[in-house]
């Protein structure tokens, strides 16, 4: 028994070490220190050891954007940026946290790691946002002994002139603007594009929504880069090799996909080997597919930065295309998921190995990209459409499946993984539209993302999360009515429909506290703090991914009561660059709460502890490095209220809208 236990323990350790030292999993910014296998990826990531409380601070430019939609504001944009950062903070299996470090002024010198969110006049038309990491030449070692390249600074660039952003994405509360922010933050943390319809997917296939931005792939990505204690032992791996004519295929995408839930993937190494890590235990179909052809405007397929060899040279994909195939226990695979006799079972802390693919070359994939839309009852097109369970006939609009003369691709077959729905009709649209309708019925699925399969006689395209099965219609807000609670405090009554027990109400990205549900179905909420006279857009989000914006792309608004302009005094006026300094902040007309944040707009002055003594009094412990130059001042943020001014002076709220 004892010996058996030892063997088991040794096996477990081996399994865990395999996970810890694994080369692949998701796809990060990768370098190799060798020109031949075995390949161990060296990835770019923040060095947790250099961060206070394992938190990378982010700073938002104090240059207020122009050209925003009517009713939008700087406060709203700052709030949405903070909310997008919090999406990554919601991943409990990742140690890394993003901390709002306040507003910063251009030219602020900084030496410690951080992320700058800038509003730039230098972004040309045709770009919505940019995000990326900066690294020094050099290496670090993580807690597992793996070599990595430390990110020293990252930048997220948005337009200063929002009128240059397309209309649907311009409002700071819009689905697209928010998902773009989450996506770009992912880049700043070290994540590349993926092909599994997650938030790090390109927008051509992203199934991300404001209500449920992250998918399994995103969670695995950030967790593998910055694993929390116990994470690596809670997930499993799938490994194998993709070959073509006996040679390893570089940069093939290998995807594990469950019938219920979202997909997870990685790209192959230059010798065709791969290992998908971070796989939650369960049953998976596994398929290999080529990178899509470059879209016009891309500099590489899917704009994925290829791995670099030991000389810093990119190692490009060594194929044009190949036929997609599911793993079925035989090298040749299958294009028919029903021919997969048994999905693979992945258990925690174990590697399911030997999942190999022998793929056949093609000159081009049958379908490079497929994009699906549904439409709501108010005719709003929604990607990865929510289709209500039990409906007898619903439609999707799909792109990328027609020939140039607008006829169906010969032999086109459409299916769902697991047979969760059946197609009743396929109709091409009349020219000039190159899309088709897909009508469905007989849902037998549980709620959640569902995967579409588009096949031809010689190829297959899998669209993970092609639609979302839901049990209820989206929420809708019909009116927003100011009222008071029994103590005379401001409340807001939210009238509408489709509210569920898990519905959340947001005012310009800040969550409102839900007090009660009234007999008439309206919800009484307490709005987050906001400046006097400020107008906030109100959005309801359900946990099934649906939003009130699905029915009402223009959100209703709430106007805050007029209020006296707040001011604060900060003592001392200068923070010495040695040890910790207690900073005392007293305010007039302020409403400090536990949600109040203080930032100095630079990663060289860090707030280590903050104590709210009263609505008008805060004490903070601040550590400044030798490099700190107090050029950015201090900013205090409570809900939607931002107070910003130079350190040492009396500080007055920037309540302007």
């Amino acid at each position, binding site marked *: 028994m004892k010996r058996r236990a030892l063997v088991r323990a040794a096996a477990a350790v081996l399994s865990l070490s395999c996970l810890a030292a694994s080369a692949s999993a998701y796809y990060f910014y990768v370098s190799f220190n060798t020109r031949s296998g075995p390949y161990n990826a060296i990835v770019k990531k923040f060095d947790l050891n250099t961060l206070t409380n394992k938190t990378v601070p982010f700073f938002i430019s104090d240059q207020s954007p122009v050209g925003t939609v009517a009713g939008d504001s700087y406060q709203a944009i700052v709030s949405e940026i903070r909310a997008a950062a919090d999406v990554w903070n919601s991943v409990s299996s990742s140690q890394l946290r993003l901390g709002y470090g306040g507003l910063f002024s251009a030219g602020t010198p900084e030496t410690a790691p951080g992320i700058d969110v800038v509003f730039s006049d230098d*972004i*040309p*038309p045709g770009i919505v946002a940019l995000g990326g990491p900066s690294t020094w030449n050099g290496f670090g070692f993580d807690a597992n002994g793996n070599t990595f390249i430390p990110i020293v600074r990252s930048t997220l660039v948005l337009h200063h002139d929002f009128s240059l952003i397309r209309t649907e994405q311009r409002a700071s509360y819009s689905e697209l603007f928010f998902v773009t922010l989450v996506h770009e933050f992912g880049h700043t943390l070290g994540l590349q594009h993926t092909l599994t319809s997650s938030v790090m997917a390109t927008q051509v296939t992203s199934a991300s929504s404001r209500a449920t931005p992250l998918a399994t792939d995103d969670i695995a990505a950030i967790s593998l880069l910055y694993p929390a204690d116990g994470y690596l032992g809670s997930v499993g791996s799938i490994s194998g090799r993709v070959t073509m004519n006996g040679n390893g295929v570089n940069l093939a995408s290998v995807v594990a996909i469950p019938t219920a839930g979202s997909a997870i993937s990685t790209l192959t190494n230059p010798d065709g080997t791969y290992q998908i890590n971070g796989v939650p235990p369960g049953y998976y179909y596994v398929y290999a597919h080529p990178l899509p052809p470059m879209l016009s405007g891309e*500099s590489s*397929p899917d704009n994925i930065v290829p791995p670099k060899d030991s000389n810093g040279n990119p190692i490009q994909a060594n194929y044009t295309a190949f036929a997609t195939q599911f793993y079925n226990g035989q090298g040749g695979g299958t294009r028919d998921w029903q021919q997969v006799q048994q999905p693979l079972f992945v258990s925690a802390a174990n590697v399911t190995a030997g999942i190999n693919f022998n793929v056949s070359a093609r000159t081009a994939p049958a379908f490079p990209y497929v994009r699906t839309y549904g439409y709501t009852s108010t005719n*709003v097109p929604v990607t990865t459409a929510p289709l209500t369970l039990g409906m007898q006939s619903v439609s999707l609009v799909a*792109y990328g499946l027609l020939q140039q003369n607008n006829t169906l691709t010969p032999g086109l077959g459409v299916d769902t993984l697991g047979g969760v729905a059946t197609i009743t009709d396929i109709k091409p649209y009349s020219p000039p539209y190159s899309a088709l309708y897909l009508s469905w019925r007989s849902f037998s699925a549980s709620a959640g993302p569902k995967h579409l399969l588009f096949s031809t006689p010689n190829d297959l395209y899998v669209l993970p999360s092609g639609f979302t099965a839901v049990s209820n219609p989206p929420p809708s807000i019909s009116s927003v009515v100011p009222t008071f609670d029994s103590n005379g405090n401001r409340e807001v009554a939210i009238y509408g429909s489709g509210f569920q027990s898990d519905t959340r109400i947001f005012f310009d990205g800040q969550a409102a506290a839900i007090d009660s549900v009234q007999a008439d179905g309206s919800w009484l909420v307490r709005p987050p703090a906001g400046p006097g006279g400020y107008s906030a857009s109100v959005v309801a989000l359900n946990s099934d991914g649906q939003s009130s914006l699905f029915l009402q792309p223009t959100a209703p608004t709430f106007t805050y009561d007029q209020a006296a302009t707040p001011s604060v005094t900060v003592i001392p006026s200068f923070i010495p660059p040695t040890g910790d300094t207690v900073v005392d902040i007293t305010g007039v007309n302020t409403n400090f709460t536990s949600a109040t944040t203080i930032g100095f707009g630079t990663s060289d002055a860090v707030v280590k502890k903050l104590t709210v003594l009263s609505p008008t009094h805060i004490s903070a412990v601040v550590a400044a490095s030798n490099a700190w130059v107090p050029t950015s001042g201090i900013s205090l943020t409570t809900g939607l209220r931002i107070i910003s001014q130079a350190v040492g002076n009396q500080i007055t709220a920037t309540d302007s809208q």
Partner: protein
Amino acid sequence: MSCKLTVKAMQKVFMLVLLGVGLTPLPASTLQQLSLDDMIRLSTVIVHGKAQQTVTGFRGSILYTHYQVQVSETLKGAAGSQLDMVVPGGAANQLQQIFAGAPSLLPGQDYVLFLWTSKSGLTQVIGLSQGLFVVTTNAAGQQIIIRAAAAERMVNAAGQPVTDSDIQMSLSDLRARIQKTLGGGK
């Protein structure tokens, strides 16, 4: 719901969808697809020439790689015989900054560049890589512009292979298209 009604409803919806898809952001750092006419209208200058990488330097938080373009022909706007343009990201003094989708220009390669100059005077390719075209000569000796990189592997945002004149056309046709789009002026 009858099929006829469904189609009618969908046609209405489809116009909305089309608005979305026509402007569907492309992947990358997040891009918004520009048509050739969009690029002609929005570009500050359009030039034909060769580019040579020069220096890399910061402007604010962003590292830019500079290229000096030797202009052989100006197709729109006013450009001298050479101009300075930049691409976001690059490497300098041991520091590397990455923005996925940023183009890399090859020395000696003939390009048509749709360029946009910001208020601060920074000149860049419009739409990250969208305004970058390679110039080649076909079997008939005609100069052809092709969207940079392997044109045979490109598709548009609807997933259709792109072989139309938006991506590949003769240089003389481009000159005519610019004239037409700008109403006869440059």
